[in-house]
Each structure stands twice: as structure tokens, then as C-alpha cells.
């Protein structure tokens, strides 16, 4: 659902943009090529700038639109340091206004490139403003997608309709009854009583049938027994456990749509027993600049939770260490204390994919426990998985193992002692 709306949003956005370009194609100060400009803009500028809002640098849309001194802008964009060094008043003003943060120097950009960027920015800003001014237009409405209010209203309408149908139905029945009463037809109720007596008698007859009783009891016992057995067998197996996390972190977006490597955040998986939940400074690598979902008008409340936990103020871009509070994630994969598990052994040495144990994590909106994490499950895998000994000098000295390898036979983890108690229990 989420990805659908995303695709839809992206699609509608590009349609809108193209429309905007077509409309503004002959605009007064758009001398550059906005399409080329978009590419350059996305490659170089988006780390610090957005069109509509302030990020590390100013919101470019309004700034560049109001400032038409393209020559100065070009100089600034290509080498702002030179301008500052030359004590250009305007440059110094901006420099001081943004806490003397140095803007990257882009000497590699030609004047033409800059013109393209400016053209793109102005066009895009204009498009956005136009879109905002016409809320009734088909594009922007679709862009926001069905709001929560609409959905609730829809549900409300359905429920209301259902109630109305029920009430109407009841009215109809009452009316029919009245009609029948008026016609003097009472036989029906007597007939109902008779049927009930018959049924009771049938049950009594069944109860006297010993074979039937035995069969029923047997079935009952078996059902109850197997239910007990299964319940006990699965005690403390929490496959499918999906707790509500303090931040609704969408793995489907990060690992799925954005294709961020698992180890970018879970960096411990390569070198430690713990894959480790990323510390919030890792989140801030990206979320310092990304504070909302694509094209959303307002900052995401979920991302704001990161800021709150870190005591980070997105306006001033400063951290306040007195306002920090820990992020209490709920642990999903709980191995008992007496079982030792090491991620690096499996991820780095055995080169297993994360998905082997954690399931299709890249499609999970909220993570759940995919594998049972029982010992049976561990042992089965150790019995079935061949050791990846290629290119690892660790295995070359083990003669017995080496002979098997030479014979071309697969060597499983179990054959290397992988199912001995002491491999995991100490």
C-alpha cells in the first residue's frame, strides 16, 4: 500500500513538473535548461538545500526567485569562499546569517551549469506555488493521497448505511408480522416449537449411541491432546512476534525502496556477536537533511522522535545534550541467555544473507520475528548448510576436512562440530 502511494506520488510529481516546465517554458528569466539543471541540482545541492524549506542552507526557491542578480549568484555558487574572502557584503551577510557554515565550493560547475540549476530551481518553485494556489486541481489532490479524514468518513458512511439497512430490514419484518397477524396466521410459531422438541430427541438418541459417544470422546481427546502438545511445544516460541516499536521505522522503505545495505545501520553484524541496533547518530547521517517523507508538507512525526531523543532542534540545527532521552526499542529476537549466537560468524564467515534468518525484511513495514529461533531450527540449518571454505585459509590446515573437500564432498557445519553443545552453550 505504502509503495503504491509512493509510486503514485512520484509519478504525479513528475507529470506535474513536466506540465510546469511546458507552461513556464517561455518564462522571462529561465535561460538555462531546467531538465539538465534538475540533474545537476540533485547530484550536488540536495545534501544541503531544498527548494521550499530551509535545510542546512536556505530554501532556494524563494531566495533565488527574489534575487535576480544571476551574475552574483553564479559567482556565489561556483566559489562562495572567494566572495567571502573578498569581503563582498551580500556574501558576508549570508555567511553570518547561516552561522558561518562553509558552503561547498563548486568550481567544477560551468556558468552554463549554474544557469541550468537556477532555471530548474525557479521553475520548480513556481510550479509548487502554482500547485499550492490551486488546491482543486487534480494533481495536488492526488499528490496528498486519500487523507485519514476521508477514510474515516468513508468507514462512517459504510457503517451508517449498514445500520440503515438493518433498521429498514427490521421495519420490514415487523410490518410483515403485523400483516400476518392481521390475517390471523399463528401456526408458524407452534411449528417452530415442534421442531425444537424433535431436535432434542435426536440429541438424546445420539447420546445413547455408544459408538458415536466413543468416537466423539476420542476425537475430543485427540484434539485437546494435540492442542496441548502443540501449545506446550511452542511455549516461548515467538515466531511472528511483532511488537509496536517506539518509532514506526519502515524497513520496507529503507531496505526495500531505498535499498540501503543492512550493514549500513546494523554495522555490528560483520564484526561482532551483536548486529546492534544503530545508535541515533547513524539515523542523523541522513535524517539531518531528510525530515519528512517525500513531498510531504510537514515534518514527519516519526522522524521528529529521533530529533526529540537526541535533543536536536531542526530550526537551529543544534544538539542539546540535556534534553536527550534513550530510545527504548522493543527487542524482537530474543535468544535465551544460555545460547550464544555470533552474527559475524554467520554474516562475515559463512556469508549468509540477513534474510536467511530474518525473512523478507525489505518488505516489512514493521519487523516481526520470521524464524522460530528454536534449537531445532538452528540444528537443522547447521546440518544442511555446507561450509563455505573457499578462499579461507582457516580451513586449509584441517586435514580430515580437507580430504573430504578434495573428494568433492560437501562439508556441513555439523561435520565441523557445529551441532556440539559447547558451540552455543557456555
Amino acid at each position, binding site marked *: 500500500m505504502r509503495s503504491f502511494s509512493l509510486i503514485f506520488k512520484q509519478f504525479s510529481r513528475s507529470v506535474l513538473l513536466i506540465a510546469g516546465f511546458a507552461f513556464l517554458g517561455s518564462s522571462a528569466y529561465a535561460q538555462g535548461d531546467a531538465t539538465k539543471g534538475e540533474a545537476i541540482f540533485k547530484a550536488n545541492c540536495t545534501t544541503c538545500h531544498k527548494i521550499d524549506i530551509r535545510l542546512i542552507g536556505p530554501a532556494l526557491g524563494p531566495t533565488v526567485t527574489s534575487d535576480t542578480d544571476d551574475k552574483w549568484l553564479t559567482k556565489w555558487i561556483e566559489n562562495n569562499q572567494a566572495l567571502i574572502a573578498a569581503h563582498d557584503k551580500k556574501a558576508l551577510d549570508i555567511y553570518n546569517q547561516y552561522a558561518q557554515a562553509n558552503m561547498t565550493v563548486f568550481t567544477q560547475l560551468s556558468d552554463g551549469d549554474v544557469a541550468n540549476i537556477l532555471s530548474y530551481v525557479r521553475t520548480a518553485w513556481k510550479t509548487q506555488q502554482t500547485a499550492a494556489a490551486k488546491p482543486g486541481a487534480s494533481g495536488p489532490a492526488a499528490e496528498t493521497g486519500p487523507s485519514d479524514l476521508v477514510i474515516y468518513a468513508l468507514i462512517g458512511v459504510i457503517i451508517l448505511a449498514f445500520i440503515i439497512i438493518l433498521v429498514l430490514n427490521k421495519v420490514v419484518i415487523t410490518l410483515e408480522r403485523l400483516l400476518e397477524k392481521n390475517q390471523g396466521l399463528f401456526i408458524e410459531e407452534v411449528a417452530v416449537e415442534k421442531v425444537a422438541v424433535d431436535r432434542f430427541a435426536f440429541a438424546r438418541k445420539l447420546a445413547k449411541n455408544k459408538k458415536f459417544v466413543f468416537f466423539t470422546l476420542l476425537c475430543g481427546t485427540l484434539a485437546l491432546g494435540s492442542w496441548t502438545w502443540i501449545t506446550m511445544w511452542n511455549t*516461548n516460541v*515467538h515466531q511472528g512476534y511483532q*511488537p509496536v516499536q517506539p518509532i514506526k521505522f519502515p524497513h520496507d522503505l529503507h531496505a526495500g525502496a531505498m535499498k540501503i545495505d543492512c550493514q549500513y545501520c546494523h*554495522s*555490528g553484524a560483520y*564484526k*561482532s*556477536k*551483536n548486529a*546492534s*541496533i*544503530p*545508535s*541515533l*547518530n*547513524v539515523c542523523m547521517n541522513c535524517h539531518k537533511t531528510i525530515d519528512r517523507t517525500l513531498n510531504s508538507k510537514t515534518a514527519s512525526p516519526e522522524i521528529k522522535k529521533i530529533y526529540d*531523543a*537526541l535533543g536536536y532542534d531542526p530550526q537551529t540545527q543544534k544538539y542539546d545534550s540535556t534534553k*536527550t532521552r*534513550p*530510545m*527504548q*526499542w*522493543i*527487542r524482537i529476537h*530474543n535468544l*535465551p*541467555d*544460555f*545460547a*550464544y549466537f*555470533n*552474527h*559475524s*560468524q554467520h554474516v*562475515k*564467515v559463512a556469508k549468509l544473507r540477513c534474510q536467511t534468518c530474518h525473512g523478507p525484511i525489505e518488505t516489512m513495514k514493521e519487523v516481526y520475528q520470521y524464524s522460530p529461533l528454536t534449537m531445532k531450527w538452528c540444528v537443522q540449518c547447521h546440518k544442511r548448510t555446507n561450509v563455505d571454505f573457499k*578462499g*579461507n*585459509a*582457516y580451513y*586449509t*590446515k*584441517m*586435514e*580430515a*576436512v580437507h580430504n573430504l573437500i578434495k573428494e568433492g564432498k560437501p562439508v556441513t557445519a555439523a561435520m*565441523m*562440530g557445529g551441532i*556440539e*553443545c*559447547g*558451540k552455543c*552453550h*557456555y
Partner: protein
Amino acid sequence: MDSNKKYWKGLEELNKTPEFVEKNKHEFAEPIPIEEVLTGGGLGGKTPRRDFLKALGFGVGAVTLAACQKVPVHKSIPYLIKPEEVTPGVANYYASTFEGHAILVKTREGRPIKIEGNPHDLLSKGGLSGQAQASVLDLYDVNRLKNSMRDGGDYGWGQTDGFIKSELAAIKAGGKKIRIVSSTITSPSTLAVIADFITQFPTTKHVAYDAVSYTGIIQANQNSFNKAVLPHYYFDKADVIVSFGADFLGTWISPAEFIRQYVQNRNNKSLQNKKMSRHIQFETGMSVTGTNADVRIPIKPSEEGLALVALYNAISGTTLPGTKPLKNNIADKAIAIVAKELVAAKGKALVVAGSNDVATQVLVNAINSQLGSYGTTIDLDNPSLQYSGNDAGLVEFVNEMKRGEVDAVFFLNANPVYDYYNSKDVTDGLKKVRLKVSFSDHADETASACNIIAPNHYYLESWGDDNAIEGYYTILQPTINPVYDTRQAEHSLLIWSENPVKDYYTYVRKNWDANLLAKGGLSGQSGWETLLQTGFVKAAENPKGTYTFGRDLNAVAQTILDHSDLLADGKVELQLYQTVAMRDGKKANNPWLQELPDPVSKVTWDNFAAVSPTDMKNWGYEDGDVVKIDGNNYSITLPVLSQPGQTQGTISVAVGYGRTLAGPVGDNVGKNAFPFHSLRNGTFQTTATVSLTKTGDNSPLSQTQTHHSIEGRNSIIKEATFTEYLKNPAARTGKGKDHKDYNENNLFWQDYDHPQYNWVMAIDLNACTGCGACVVACSAENNVPVVGKAEVGRRREMHWIRIDRYYSFDDNGQGGVTKEKEIARLEDLDHVRVVYQPMLCQHCDHAPCETVCPVLATVHSSEGLNHMAYNRCVGTRYCANNCPYKVRRFNWFNYWNDARFENYLQNDHTLLVLNPDVVTRFRGVMEKCSMCIQRIQAGKLKAKIEKRAVRDGDIKVACQQTCPANAIVFGNANDPNSEVSKALASERTYYVLEELGVQPGIGYQVKIRNISETEA
């Protein structure tokens, strides 16, 4: 040729007391309360069928309900901003210093969990004492002070600073004395801070003293050679070592270093070169050093001086005036032989004495000078700085206080109210002092008598440096943020003396930049960073001068003889000593140390009066009888313990016990013996004459000693003499023509392949000194619980490795057991030999424990290990019963969550010291040595990640790593070039209880005693 020497583990076993014999018949030596349960109200009464059904129903219901509780929600709380160097699950190591030894502190997620020796440490090359191993636990002591205090109430640091500054200003104006009282400070930066403080307040004097003092040696060197230093001794350069009561392998000056030196001439390598040093010990009580000696001669304290005079006479060929013959025949004979051997080994001989008497030490200097020891085995030019305290300085300070001349006193790592011989003088004196400040991190005896306590950081939280040996500078760096709101003492002193440098880190840094880095050829930022990684710098050694003793000895001899006469007044002579675990008692609140059995007596959680078995009989004492010890205007009551080897007519009592304000663990454990000290000729004497009276009470000691009988099996401990070894290196190992192959009758066990690794261990009994560092290291590494005195008394201590101590008669190389009857045997109990044997799970290839486990909780691995799956264990204890080595431990309680053990290891803070890679065991399961399988697995994983084979020495088990004697070697027997394969290939190797055919994985090397030439 099997050894036919008789060994025994305790006197009960030797004497076959009826109780012991009775106990031994039982499957378990300790009583099992099953009969109590059966005869008690519980199961004894008749239970009607209905009641039974009711109970059953209720039980099932209750259990079902209890099982229905919700699975707890586990939280995972990551760092907000992760420090770059921390990876959760991966340990970091930081170089630091413990008591002059360069160490590595292992931290996990920013908290120190283990202390490991720095392999490049100049002193012990990576070996560490039990004290060092245990020190990490004190960091998490919940009884440490949590902020600064005034008169017992909390007082903020700001207020404290304001108060002290104003007081100091007033005191400075008044012009009265200020004193900084400390134990020996070896940190150059701390000394500089104190010097700066003295500049600011010129009436200040720094008084350094040591609870167990070495003033005698320092003063003697001042008298003899005009150098007031504690020499640096080289036991590795000595072929003949003679010690008079100096416990240099246990407690004397720098034991971990001396063990390393001493063992170099006695270990496998040395023996293979046909070389072994000779060590003769004259001493009163049985010390670790005495038990390791080739020959040990028990002498009374009063005879020590006479023996030294006799030795000097024999070596120099002169006769000092007043020389008297020793009443002790054996000692007298021994002195003559020893003198001959010492002279023969001139230049490679060393005589040391533990006495704190100046005259005695001057005489020792004269002997060493005659033997040419200076410049060879004794270095006066690169002295040890580990102890520099001056007894007279402390006495003078106490007198100054009593005279009301002192207005301010600062106590830094000093506790004179506890360890001064006349503690009342100190408390009385303190009352006359206006400003009393203690830097103690506990409200200890002295701190409680102060108005201000400004608690110091623990050493793991501190910046600092150390200089244990001249020219050897080590660094301390913090490994954790301060756990409590404490402040480093040096920092406080800087603030109070208005030093321009406001924090101690900057101060240390400046001091190193200006003075110390250059000594190691380092400089600047890069030099500092190198230092933080390596942990130390070593300056070039001072050239060694020549020292010849030229003083007149007549007066010295007279002083010694007078002292002897004073002691030998017919009463019982008392010798005060330090135990290996507790030392001077400063770490009394450490449960790991309290539960570490004393190497010789195997007593835990107590001090006691060690009495010779002959005296026990003569005086009518039984073990545990409480006696009143009276002497030097002080008396205490202590249980007695029959200690073979104790000199007749003497008792030995350990200092370091009887703390009253150490904390809940250390409070009222044993009795304080410090007040038995006396001041004589300017130094504190560790001997006294006392009288003993029986109180009639009996207070059993908790020993780990007689838990397990050796059942007359003579293949457990094997010992040969050096002569025998030279003739046949495999002497007394049982190997030879008639050696049976016990493995051929292998009916029960399948053989296991070891395709990849075969982890085994070799333990050199000739290197092991029995110090017990491995026991503490193992507890720290493997989360072994502390059980307390009562449980040790029930023989339920949990140590995975223990050091068995076996006595044998000192038969002077003639072999065989004593021929005489009872009395003669008792006489011989004064001359016993001791062999230590570290005993841990032998990881048998044919493990008897595995065959009896009904639930397969203990099984064999393809790597030669005996695995123990705790989660599978149901606690039948069959395995422990079937283990011939008795190394399995049963969890009688849930030690980690049981209010009865709350002082030990289970509060929120001490739990932080646990090794996260090892699980804690629950009540009702068996546990035992895993051969540090977590380290094996980690070592293999590291090799796999680095795509290489496991290198020999990559994996070190905890006991091996800390052993200062390198007695334990661990490795892969499949690799013929590994250290362990080479060690096991030694002719001396034998396997304990080999005849059982269990194929143990640990090979021991026969103990060799250099008694070829003893005629005594």
C-alpha cells in the same frame, strides 16, 4: 616405578581420625539434609489420600498459573551517539597500571570487566596476582562513597571546596602544621601535586608509611651503603637463594615479579638445560615461599637473629661477639650447609630476610656483601620504589597530633586508625586536629574519624602514572566514566592549593611532556599516544656501582641478640604475616579475595592462629578452638588451626583481617592483628611474645582443604629430586618398562576423533607456586559465584579451578614414610613438604561424567573438550559422583538472585562485572571448567574472519594468562609444534589417576626438588 611417598591433604586424613574415616565412607563427605527432611514434620507425618489429592491439585494448578505469566518484554536501548571505538559485543583493551604492573583493562560496552597483564610488563611479563585480578570488582562496589561528605552527611563538592579552602587559608595564617598522610606513593605526578601543595602551604609535610613496612631494609641500606632505598632483587640471577622469613613468592615487596624470576631457574626449560636453583627457607609459619623451598627449616622468631649471626660467622670465618649456639639442632646443622653452598655460589647467591628490624637487615647486607650479591642479584642503583614508607615518620606524626601541633591532615590511601599499632593514639590525636580530610572511597575506620571525606576515583576511573622500579614509568588511563560522584584526590589537591593547572589530566600530561616521555625516547602528541597504547616507558638503567659492606657489626650483633633474648622469654612467640589474598587488608571488601583460599591453610573468610600439631596436642587444642591471644597490651580471640610446618612454640596470625568499617563483605571477618606490632629501634616489629588461653568456644574455620580425600591413591601427585631427575628425566613419573598401558582395556568408551583441534593443557608442578591468581582470574572470566563463609564450610565453594595442596614428610631424600611411631610422626610434622597441584576439569577423552549423565547434559566434543550444557542439566549430580577428580560444582542456590548472598555479587552494580560471553548458572545445575570455551570460540572466529589458521598462542585461557610462573600451557595437541605439545613431550609429564584409563587432557609435570646435597 611408582612414587611410594605418602601424601595427605589434611591432618584428619593422615591421622585417620574416626570422624574422617566415618565421613569418608559416605558418598558425600558433607552431610546431606535428606534425613532431616524425611524425619521432619514434612514427609514423616501420615498424609491422608484426600490431602494428598488436594495438595496435588493445588500444586498442578499453582504451577499452571505460575507458568501463565506473560513473557517479559525485553528492551534494546542503543547508544544515542555511539562512541566511535565501541562496537557492542566487541571488547576494547586499554593500557593501565595496577600497583606498578603494566596491565590491560578489558572493557565491554565501556565498562571494565577483566584485568589482564600487559605481556610487555617489565615486572611480570603479563602475569598478574590474584589481587590485581580481583581489583576490577571493587570498581562496582556499591559501598563506595557516592559523593563528598562532611561529618557523615552529604556535602556537595562546591561546598567542600569552599569549606576546605577557607579552612586552609585560616590554618596557613595560623602557621600550624599540615600533614598529608599516605601509604607509599609511586606516582611521579601525584608526588609533584603534593610538592606543589607544599609550596602553597609551606607548613605541610608528606608522611608516607606502609601498613606492612619495609623501613628496616631501607634504613639498613642507609646505614650500610648510604642509600636509603629498597633494592631491586633478581631471583633469576641467583643459583642459591636463602630466605629468612621473607615470603617473596607470596607477599614480600613484589611477589608476582619474584615468582616470574624465581621460576625461570626451575621451570621446564631450565630443567632441560640441567639447571635448577636451590632455595632454602628459614621461617616460623608455613608461607607460600616456604612450601616451595627445596629445604624448609622451621625456626622461632627469636632464633632468626641467632641463625643470621651464625650464618655470617660461617661465611666470613669470624665470630661476632655474643654469638650463641642455636638451640635448634636442625637449624644449626642447616646453617653450616647453607653457608657452604652460598660461598660456593658466590656472585650467584642471594640472602633475603623478611624482618623489619634494621639491625637484622644490616647483618643481611653484610652477608650479601660477603657473597658478592651487590651488582648481581641485588641492584641498589635501580631500586624498587614500591615501598618507601618510614615508620618513624608516622610515629612522629601521631605524636605531633597528640601535642596539638597539627591543624590539618589529609589521608590518602591510608588507614592508620585500622593499621597503626596503637590506634587509640591516632583517634585521640585526630580529635585535636582542626581539619581532617580523607580521600578514601569508603567510609573506613580513619575516614569515619575525619570531618571531610572527599572520595577518590577508583584507579580504573583515574588518570595517573606509576614508577615501581627506578626508570620504569607506567601510565594509568580511565577506562570508564566515574561510577559515582567522586573526584580524583590529586584533582582535589590541585583545586585546594589554587594550582594554576586546574585538572589532573592536564597536570599528568604536562608532567610527562616535560619530564617523562623523553626518558622513553618519546615526545609530543604522538609520543603521548604511543604511551597510551604501550602503557609504559623504560629509561636506560643507571650504571651499577660497587658496594662493599664496611661497617662494624659488633653493635649490630648485640642489638640482634638483645632482641632475641627479649622474644625468647619462655612464652609463645607470635609471628605476624600477610596472607596472599588479603595482604594488608585494604581490599577486605572484595569477596573474590575473601573466598580465595589461603594457599597453605586453605582457609577462607577468616584469620586464625596457626599452631604446630605437636603444640596442639601438648596444649590440648582441637581445630577451631577459640583461644585468647594476649600480648603487647592487646588481646584478640581467634580459632586455632593445626598447621604442619609451624615451628613449635610459636603461633602465626595474619594481619589484614578484622576490619570494622570496610564494607559489608569485609566487616568483622577475622580479628585485627596489627596492634600486636611494637615499635623497636624506630621500626615496627612483626613479632611478639604472647600468652594463649582457651576460651572454651569453638568456631569452625571454612577450609577448602579436606573436601576430597585422596583415598590412598599415589598416582595423583608425583615428585622427584633433582639428582633423580638428572639421572633419569622421567624419574618417578611411573613411565618405564613396567608401565602399563591403561588404555588398552578400553571396554566402555568409544574413541573420539579430533579432526581439527585437540585442546589440551600442560601444568608444570615445578613452576606452580600455589599463589591462587588463576583461581581469581577464572572467577572473573567465567562468572563464578561467591558463596560466603557458611557455604564454603558446607564445602560448596564454586571455584572451577582449585589448587590442591599435598603434604608429605620431609624425608630428606631418603624416601619412604616415617618409621617411628606417633610421637616421631608429630615431630616430623614440623618438617613437611608441600606440593601444589592446580586441579580443574581434566577434559578426559573417556570422561566418566559423560557416561552417567541421564540427560546427556555433558558430552564430548570433536575438539577434545568435555562440554557442559547447563540448560540441559537437571541436577542429578551423578557426574560429580563419578568424576575421579572432583572438579564439578553444583549450584545449590541461585547465587545471582538470592537475598542470602546479597553482599557478594548480585546487586545491580556488581552484576556489571560479569563477562557477557558466559552465562550465569541457575540453581540446580552442575558447572565446571569449560577450558574457557568462549575464548577458544572467539579465537577461532577471529582466525576465520582474518582468513588464516589459528596460531599457537592466539588463544590463552584465563588461568594460563594470569599465571606469573607460566606454569599453565594451553593449546592444540594436533599441532606438533605448539607449546603445549612440546611441554607434554617432556619426560616429566604424567597424567593424574592415569590407571583409571579416562585419558585426561591435562598433563602434569613432576615436581622436582633440589635436595641432592642435603645432609641435614
